[in-house]
C-alpha cells in the first residue's frame, strides 16, 4: 500500500492513496481514517476523508511535519483489512415524482423508458458514499452500474428544497438543505440528513452505503410527520462488502 504525503500548510497534511475515484482507493482512505479515530494521537486535531486522500489536521507544536509523515507511514503499514468486511446500508425512503420530483418524467423520456422503470432502476441497487462535503451531512455518492446519462440542467435552479433526490449522468445524490442545483430532481425524502436537534446530527458517514426505497404519498406523509418530530428511525442493516464486482 503506497501513499503520497502532500504538504497542505503548517497544520495539515494530505495523504494521497491514488489519483482515481475508485472504491479500492477510497477504502484505504477510510482505513487510515478509522485507524486514527480508533487509536487517536494527541498531535492530530481531526481527519477528513475525501475520494482518494485523507486530510490530517494536526498540531505542529506537538508533532512536526517529518515526524507526522513517519507516524502516518507507520500507521499505513500496519493497516489490515478485516477478513470479512461488513458494510452499513441505510435505507432512504423516497417519494418519486410529484411536487419535488419535477424532472422525473423528463428523465424517463430522455432514456426512453417509463417512469416506473426509472424508479425500479434507481432504487434497484446500493450507492456507496465516498465522502461528505459541501454542506453539513451532504454525501458524495456514486453508482457503479451505468444505465443513465442524464444531462445537467442548462440553467441550474436557484433553489432546490432540502431532501431532494437528484441525478446527473450516472450519479445520484440527496441534498440535506435548500441549495441552488443543476441536477435533475426526481423525488424527495422526508428523512433529515442533518438534524441539529440531535446529539449526533448526521444520518450518513463516508464509507457507508445508501439504498433508495420507493414509498407512496401516504407512507411519505407518515414518515415526514415522524421525521419532523425527530422520531423517525431509518432502517439500517449490514451487508457483506462487494469488492471485485464493482468497477
Amino acid at each position, binding site marked *: 500500500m503506497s501513499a503520497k504525503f502532500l504538504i*497542505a*500548510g*503548517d497544520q495539515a497534511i494530505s495523504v494521497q492513496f491514488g*489519483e482515481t475515484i475508485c472504491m479500492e482507493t477510497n477504502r484505504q482512505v477510510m482505513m487510515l481514517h478509522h485507524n486514527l479515530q480508533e487509536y487517536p494521537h494527541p498531535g492530530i486535531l481531526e481527519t477528513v476523508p475525501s475520494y482518494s486522500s485523507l*486530510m490530517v*489536521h494536526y498540531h505542529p507544536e506537538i508533532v512536526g511535519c517529518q515526524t507526522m509523515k513517519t507516524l502516518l507511514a507507520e500507521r499505513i503499514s500496519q493497516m489490515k483489512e478485516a477478513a470479512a468486511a461488513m458494510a452499513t446500508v441505510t435505507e432512504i425512503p423516497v417519494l418519486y415524482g410529484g411536487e419535488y420530483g419535477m424532472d422525473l418524467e423528463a428523465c424517463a423520456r430522455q432514456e426512453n423508458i417509463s417512469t416506473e422503470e426509472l424508479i425500479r432502476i434507481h432504487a434497484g441497487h446500493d450507492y456507496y458514499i465516498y465522502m461528505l462535503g459541501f454542506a*453539513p*451531512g451532504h454525501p458524495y455518492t456514486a453508482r457503479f452500474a451505468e444505465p443513465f446519462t442524464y444531462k445537467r440542467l442548462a440553467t441550474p435552479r436557484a433553489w432546490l428544497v432540502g431532501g431532494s433526490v437528484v441525478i446527473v449522468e450516472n450519479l445520484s445524490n440527496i441534498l440535506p438543505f435548500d441549495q441552488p442545483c443543476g441536477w435533475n430532481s426526481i423525488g424527495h425524502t422526508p428523512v433529515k440528513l442533518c438534524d441539529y436537534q440531535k446529539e449526533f*446530527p448526521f444520518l450518513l458517514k463516508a464509507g457507508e452505503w445508501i439504498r433508495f426505497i420507493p414509498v407512496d404519498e401516504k407512507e411519505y406523509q407518515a414518515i415526514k410527520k415522524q421525521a419532523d418530530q425527530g422520531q423517525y428511525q431509518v432502517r439500517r442493516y449490514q451487508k457483506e462488502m462487494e469488492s471485485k464486482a464493482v468497477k
Partner: protein
Amino acid sequence: MGILFHKGGMLTTVQDEGRFGYQQYGVSPAGPMDVRSFKLGNLLVGNRLSESALEVTVVGPEICFKEANVIAITGADLCPQINGAEIPNYQAVLVQKDDVLSFGGRRSGMRAYIAFAGGLDVPVVMGSKATLIRSSLGGAWGRAIKDGDDLPFCAPKTFLPNLSRRRLPPERFFANEIVLRVIPGPQEDSFTLQGIRHFFWDGAKISSEFDRMGCRLECSPIEHRGDGSIITDGVAFGSVQVPPSGQPIIMLADRQSTGGYPKIGTVASVDLPLLAQAMPGYRLRFVQVSIETAQMLYCRQLNYLKDVQRSFTPHIGQQLEQWRPKIEGY
C-alpha cells in the same frame, strides 16, 4: 443581564477557537479570522485562549452593559469608546453597569475582537460556540448579531489580578500592500513553472469578494498544467485554490472542508492575521517559505502567547510550564 446590542454593527458574530472534528461530515470549522488577535484578547481578560468572544467587522456595534465585566479589544483599531470617551485597544478595561461601548470609526485593520472575562453564554453546538452563518449554526441563533439582541455572560468579573498591567503593545496592520509567506503545495505540480513564478513574483490584488469564507484575488491568470480541476480533497485554513479561471481564492475561517480546485500553496498560519486585517484593493505579495520555517514560526507564536499569559498570572507560571509546546529541533 450581560450585554444588549443597541446596534449590531456591520457583521458581528460570536466566535470561539472553531468547531473541530466535524469537517468529515462537511461542517466548516468557522472560528476567528484573525486567530492571534482573538487569543490575545482572551489572554488580556484572563480567559483560556479558546473562550468565546465577539468578532466585529469594520463598523462596530453599540453595546450597553447590563452588568459590570472586564473586557479587552484587540485586532483592528476601530476607535473604541466607553460612554463617548476613547479607550485603548489591547488593554483590559473594567466596564460598569449601564456603560455603553461604541466605535468611532476604522483607523486600521478590518476585524476587531471584543473579549469578555468569562466569555459569552451561548449554546455549545457540536462542541463549539463559533457562528457559522452559512449553515445557521452555533453562536447567537446561528446568525450575525442584530440590533436589539442581548447576550448573557458566563462568569463576569469585576476584578482581575494585575488589571492595570494587563496591556500589550497594539499590533500595527499595514495598509495597501502586505506580504504573506506561503508554503508550496499540496498541488504545486498542477501548475506550469510559468504559473508558479507568476504567483510568487507578481502577487495579486484583493478583490471585493472577500468574506469569512474566502478571499478572491485579482491577477493575470495563473497557468495550469491541466484543466484546473483535481479529485476533490481536503482544504486547510489559508489554502490558495486556483480555479480554471486562474484567479486564486484563499480559503479562510468559514472555508468548505473539501474542494476540487488545485491548491498552489498554503499561507503560513502566522501570516493569516495580516490577511484577515486587510481590505479589498490591497496588494498581496507572496514569499515562498519552507514547511519547517512555517512550523517554527507558529511554535514561536504559541510560546509568545504562553509568555504573555505567564506575565499576567505569575503565580500559575509553574502550571503553565508543563504544557509549553515542545518544539522539535529548535
